[in-house]
């Protein structure tokens, strides 16, 4: 498995939001992507999943050797590319449990039953009780609860590569520990990841193989986990 982002430039609302960006995510690799607010992290994710408002004007996205630029969002998702949203919308009237079951069926087919069984256990571990599963998807959920709902959807989809946009925001420490364990296990089973976060909290629990910094839509630095410490200490402006 490999997701190769080849020198892409993304335009949204008449502005360039990502510029000449390249990155390769391979099987089981954990990549961290950090950057100041408005640096293009979320735009990059939207473009990778084919959001209609994010136009790729240059470059290519290649998944397992094939360009996915011509594929619709749902087709990219069905190939095994997952996006966890920074701000997930609420879907009224659909119980989270049946939503998860449908996702599991779509992505893990005959293993859906086992997936759902394991998922119930994971829900408890990350601090989402059974009553959450009966509620409508994200409806009335707090910020942290929405992230947990994203986490369960990640688990149900069992993706080949996951883009996790601030999956840790607003999540309490105990739940974060459990989430990190789920992510590490998924990585060890082959899921490649791009974890986006402002805080080093998650990277202490789920240590990245590679760290990248994005500023004004441009990748300005890459390195190992030491880069996180540097950013923490000196801020983005002084890192390189």
């Amino acid at each position, binding site marked *: 498995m490999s997701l190769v982002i080849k020198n892409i430039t993304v335009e949204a609302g008449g502005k360039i939001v990502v510029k000449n960006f390249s990155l390769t995510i391979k099987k089981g690799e954990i990549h961290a992507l950090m950057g100041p607010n408005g640096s293009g992290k979320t735009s990059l994710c939207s473009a990778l999943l084919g959001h209609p408002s994010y136009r790729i004007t240059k470059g290519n996205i290649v998944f397992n050797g094939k360009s996915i630029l011509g594929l619709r969002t749902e087709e990219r998702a069905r190939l095994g590319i997952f996006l966890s949203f920074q701000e997930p919308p609420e879907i009224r009237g659909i119980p989270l449990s049946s939503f998860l079951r449908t996702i599991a069926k*779509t992505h893990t087919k005959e293993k859906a039953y086992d997936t759902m069984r394991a998922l119930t256990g994971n829900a408890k571990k990350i601090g989402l009780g059974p009553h959450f599963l009966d509620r409508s998807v994200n409806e009335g959920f707090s910020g942290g609860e929405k992230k947990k709902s994203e986490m369960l959807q990640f688990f149900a989809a069992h993706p080949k590569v996951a883009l996790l946009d601030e999956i840790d925001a607003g999540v309490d420490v105990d739940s974060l520990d459990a989430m990190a364990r789920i992510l590490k296990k998924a990585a060890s089973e082959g899921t490649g990841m791009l974890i986006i976060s402002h805080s080093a909290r998650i990277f202490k629990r789920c240590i990245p193989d590679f760290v990248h910094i994005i500023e004004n839509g441009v990748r300005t630095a890459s390195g190992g986990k030491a880069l996180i410490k540097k950013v923490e200490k000196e801020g983005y402006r002084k890192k390189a």
Partner: protein
Amino acid sequence: MKQKYQYGFHDAITPLYRAKKGLSEAVVRKISEIKQEPQWMRDIRLRSLAIFNKKPMPVWGADLSKIDFSAITYFARASDAPAHSWEKVPKKIKAAFERLGVPEAERKFFAGVGAQYDSEAIYHHIRKDIEAQGVIFTDTDTALREHPDLFKRYFGTVVPAGDNKFSALNAACWSGGSFIYIPKGVKVAMPLQAYFRINEKNMGQFERTLIIADEDSEVHYIEGCTAPVYATDSLHAAVVEIIAKPRARVRYTTIQNWSSNVYNLVTKRARAEDNALVEWVDGNLGSKITMKYPAVFLVGKGARADILSVSLAGKGQHQDAGAKVVHLAPETSSSIIAKSVSFGGGRTSYRGLAQVIKGARNARIKVRCDALVLDTRSRSDTYPTIKAEENDAMIEHEATVSNISERELFYLKSRGFSETEASSLVVSGFFEPLAKTLPLDYAIELNRLIQMEMENSIKPA
């Protein structure tokens, strides 16, 4: 893959008798004669025909100008008499209903089942233990013959012939429908079900349903409707009357899934006496044009009405639906929830009346209309009327219009759902309050129907 309207098949069944096309005194007399009715009923029919001819077409709602009354067959008889065991139903008709799953449904969860084919009931069956409690569940023609006193006492008392043009048409041509009487104190735990099928081309179906729930009784009645797809139009103009005596509870559920060539113009009204509860659950998925506003007249102190109207309008469809509550007694309360979805160029309208008559002190009315409009080609309108003659009436009216936001759509697509799947997921969620009131099999069927309707109308972008 595109799925067609599943119930669009037509059976090659020649009716035993088919009236000449068009409406005349001769046709009405013939219907009455074939049914060997008493004079008083024939007189009602003829008087109603005169009212129908005199009344202008209603122009305040959906566009009815394309209805050609002269092209319609007003009566067709498919079998001699309704059978009481499924084995005795004529073979071809049986096959048609088996395709619709009717007798199968009965075995599972109904206390009684009726089936109507074009003008008349072809089957009626009620469980022995229910019948032994004095419950009457039969077709309306049989009821006129076998229970003339009950019939005469209540027929036309809730919806008089002169109420509107189509109630007059129904009173003139009525045939079939269900007749239900629940004796004092009897609570029927399982629903009674009726199934209505139009098979003939350009057919007019005018069933007449009369439900009398005596004091302290309880009943749930469910009806479903389908028809073949023809290039020309059919007309369904039914009348339903419910009398809920003191402390009775009646729930009437309709899942209307007529093919897209049917004009569905139905008058449904209930009379709720002291502390009675009437619930209308009205699901409109099919038809070309529907005009239907289930009503409850709260005539007794403490009476309650609960109306849930749900409609789905796709390409070429106009669902003009809603509800009416008229509070005529003190301490009465009512709730109307109307939910509609329009897509693929379809149109939905909510039309409602909430009225408090002088003397109906402490009335409470709650109206909530939610419309979901899926694309810019589609349309939704709200026409609420509120009239209160008492100052202490508490009337709430809330209306929302929403669409599926680009955000929601992108979110669902990113989970692997196509545009159609994402839309039907949101629509199913929107209709969840309806699904919750239905027996499980009906709820599953409803979701399947929604998905099918959406697949027919939504083209991938």
